[in-house]
C-alpha cells in the first residue's frame, strides 16, 4: 500500500467504519430490532395484510414504470451531455442534480399543480382521458422525477471514458451505426446503466414526499408502502411501521445486491475485472 496524504489505513478505516455504524447501521438496527420485538406471526400478519399487499403492488408497478422511463431518458440525457457541445450544456448538466437537492415535497407540490386538471399539463391531458394527478400514473411521474438523475450520473462518467477510437475502429471494419451501438457502446455502458436503474428503482420504492402530494392516497389504489408506514406511525403503531419499513429495507437491499452481482459477473465476462 502506498503512503497517502490521509493518516494511516488503520485510523482512517476505523473512523469511517465508526461513522458508518453511527449514521447508517445503528438506525437501521433499531428499526429491525423494533420489528423483531413483534414476534414472527404478528410480523407476518402486518406485512401480508391486504392493505400492505396492495401497497406493495402499487409501489412496485409504479417504480418499475418510473425506472423504465428514467432508464431510457437518463441514458439519452447522459449521451447528449457527453457527446455534444451546445450553448447551455453546463446549465443543463447542473439542472440534473436539482431533484437531489430539492425537498421532494416541493417537487410533489409543483408536479401536482402541473398535472391537476386546472394545471398546465393536466388541462391538456385530462380532456384526452389521461388522468395523472391523483391517479397511479402520478406516482410514477413523481418517482421518475426523483430517480432519473441516478441514471444520468452513473452512465455519464462511463460515456466520458468511452474511447472514440473503439467506435472508429468499428466503423473501419464496416459496422453500421446500429451495430456499433449494439456491439461497441452498449456493452461498455450496460453495467453502469443497470446500476443507475437499480439505484433509481430502490429510490422509487422509498419515495414519499413527492408521492403523497400527487398520489391521491386512496387505500388499495394509490397508497404506496411508505405512506402506509407513515399512517401506522400516525396511529402510534411503531411496530407496524417498523415492520413495513423492514420490508422496504429488504427490497432495496435485495435490489442492490442483485445489481452488484450482475455487475460483477458482467465485468468478469467483459474481462475488465
Amino acid at each position, binding site marked *: 500500500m502506498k503512503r497517502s496524504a490521509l493518516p494511516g489505513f488503520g485510523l482512517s478505516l476505523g473512523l469511517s467504519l465508526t461513522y458508518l455504524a453511527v449514521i447508517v447501521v*445503528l438506525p437501521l438496527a433499531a428499526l429491525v*430490532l423494533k420489528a423483531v420485538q413483534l414476534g414472527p406471526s404478528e410480523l407476518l400478519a402486518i406485512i401480508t395484510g391486504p*392493505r400492505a399487499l396492495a401497497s406493495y403492488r402499487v409501489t412496485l408497478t409504479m417504480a418499475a414504470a418510473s425506472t423504465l422511463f428514467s432508464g431510457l431518458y437518463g441514458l439519452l440525457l447522459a449521451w447528449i451531455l457527453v457527446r455534444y457541445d451546445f450553448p447551455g450544456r453546463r446549465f443543463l448538466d447542473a439542472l440534473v442534480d436539482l431533484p437531489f437537492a430539492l425537498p421532494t415535497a416541493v417537487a410533489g407540490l409543483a408536479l401536482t399543480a402541473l398535472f*391537476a386538471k386546472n394545471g398546465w399539463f393536466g388541462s391538456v391531458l385530462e380532456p384526452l382521458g389521461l388522468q395523472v394527478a391523483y391517479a397511479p400514473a402520478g406516482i410514477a411521474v413523481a418517482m421518475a422525477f426523483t430517480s432519473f438523475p441516478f441514471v444520468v450520473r452513473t452512465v455519464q462518467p462511463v460515456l466520458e471514458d468511452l474511447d472514440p477510437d473503439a467506435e472508429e475502429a468499428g466503423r473501419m471494419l464496416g459496422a453500421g451505426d446500429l451495430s456499433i451501438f449494439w456491439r461497441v457502446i452498449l456493452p461498455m455502458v450496460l453495467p453502469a446503466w443497470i446500476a443507475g436503474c437499480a439505484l433509481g428503482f430502490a429510490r422509487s420504492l422509498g419515495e414519499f414526499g413527492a408521492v403523497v402530494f400527487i398520489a391521491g*392516497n386512496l387505500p388499495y389504489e394509490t397508497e404506496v408502502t411508505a405512506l402506509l408506514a407513515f399512517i401506522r406511525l400516525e396511529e402510534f403503531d*411503531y411496530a*407496524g411501521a417498523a415492520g413495513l419499513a423492514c420490508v422496504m429495507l429488504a427490497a432495496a437491499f435485495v435490489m442492490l445486491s442483485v445489481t452488484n452481482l450482475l455487475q460483477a459477473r458482467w465485468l468478469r465476462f467483459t474481462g475488465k475485472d
Partner: protein
Amino acid sequence: MKRRTLVGTMLAAPLAAALPGIARAEVGSILNASYDISRELFAAINPAFAEAWKARSGSDITIEQSHGGSSRQARAVLEGLQADVVTFNQEVDIQILHDRGNLIPADWKQRFPHDSSAYYSLPAFLVRAGNPKNIKDWDDLVQDGVQVLFPNPRTSGNARYTYLAAYAHALDKNGGDEAAAEEFAARLFANVPVFDTGGRGATTTFVEREIGDVLITFEAEVNGIRREYGEDRFEVVIPTSSIEANFPATVVDAVVDQRGSRDVATAYVEFLYSPEGQTILAENYNRVRDEKVIAQFADRFPPVRLFTVDEVFGGWAKVNEVHLAEGGVLDRILVGR
C-alpha cells in the same frame, strides 16, 4: 418515560439536543405544541397572553409555536419535544401522553373546566359559489356525482371527526341501525376522489386544484378558508347535525416541573377561558364556553344539533376499538371503497 423505545430515543436525541439551545435558564419562553390549522389562532392569542402575563407578573414571556398534525405533535412530545403546553384537536392525542409516556396525570381532563376544552368546533361544509350541487346536509353528500373532499381519517384527526359526524348522522336517521350507518359512511367514502394526509393539504386540493364539490373540515377552518381565498368563491354550509369536536389543552407536567414553568404554562391554558381569550377564539370562528362571548358572536354560529363522542360512541376508547382499530369499521369501509 421508562419505556421509551430505542427508535423513539434516536428520533428524540436531535430534538433534545436542539431545544435547550434556546436557553431557558430563567423561564422567558414556553412552547405550545399545537395542531396544524391553529397557527393563525395562536398567533393572535399569544401576544394577548404575553401582555396579560406582563401585567400580572411583571415579567416578559415569549410563546413559541410548533404546529403539525395533532398525532404527530403528540408523538414529538412523547419522544422528547419540550412542550410546556399542548393544545390538540383530539382527546386521544393528549391521553397518549399519559398512556405511553406518563408525562401527565390520568385525571388531566378534570384540571380545567369543560373537560379541559376551552373551545370546540364541528365538521362543516365549504362549497363553491352558488352551491351548484345544492348541498345542504349530510344526505346530499352521498348522491351520485358529488365529489367530497376530506383528508385520510388514518392520518388526520380532523377527518376522523368527519367520519364520526357522518356515522352519527346516519345512526340517528336510521334509529340506531349500525349496519345502515356503516353503509352510509361507505357511500360517503366512495365519493372521495383524493385523500390528503392533512387538513391543509385537502384545502389546497379543493381550493387550488379545484377538485371536489364540497370540502369538509372544522367550522373554524371553513370560515377561515372563505375569508382567505375569497368570499365570492365559496359558501359555508352548516349541516343540521354534526359532532362536537373538542380542542383540549393541558400542561405537560414532566416538562414544566423540569423547567420551572408551571405557573406561566397554567396561566396560559387558563387564559383560553378568560373573556379576552374566548373573544379571540370566537373571532377565529371557534365555538366557545363564555355565555357573554357566545351572545356577542351569536350570528356567527348557527344552531346545530351536536352529537358527542361519549353519547353516540361511548367514548374515544370505544371509538378506537370498534372503528379505528385494524380491521375495524373504518377499515371495512376503506376496503369496500
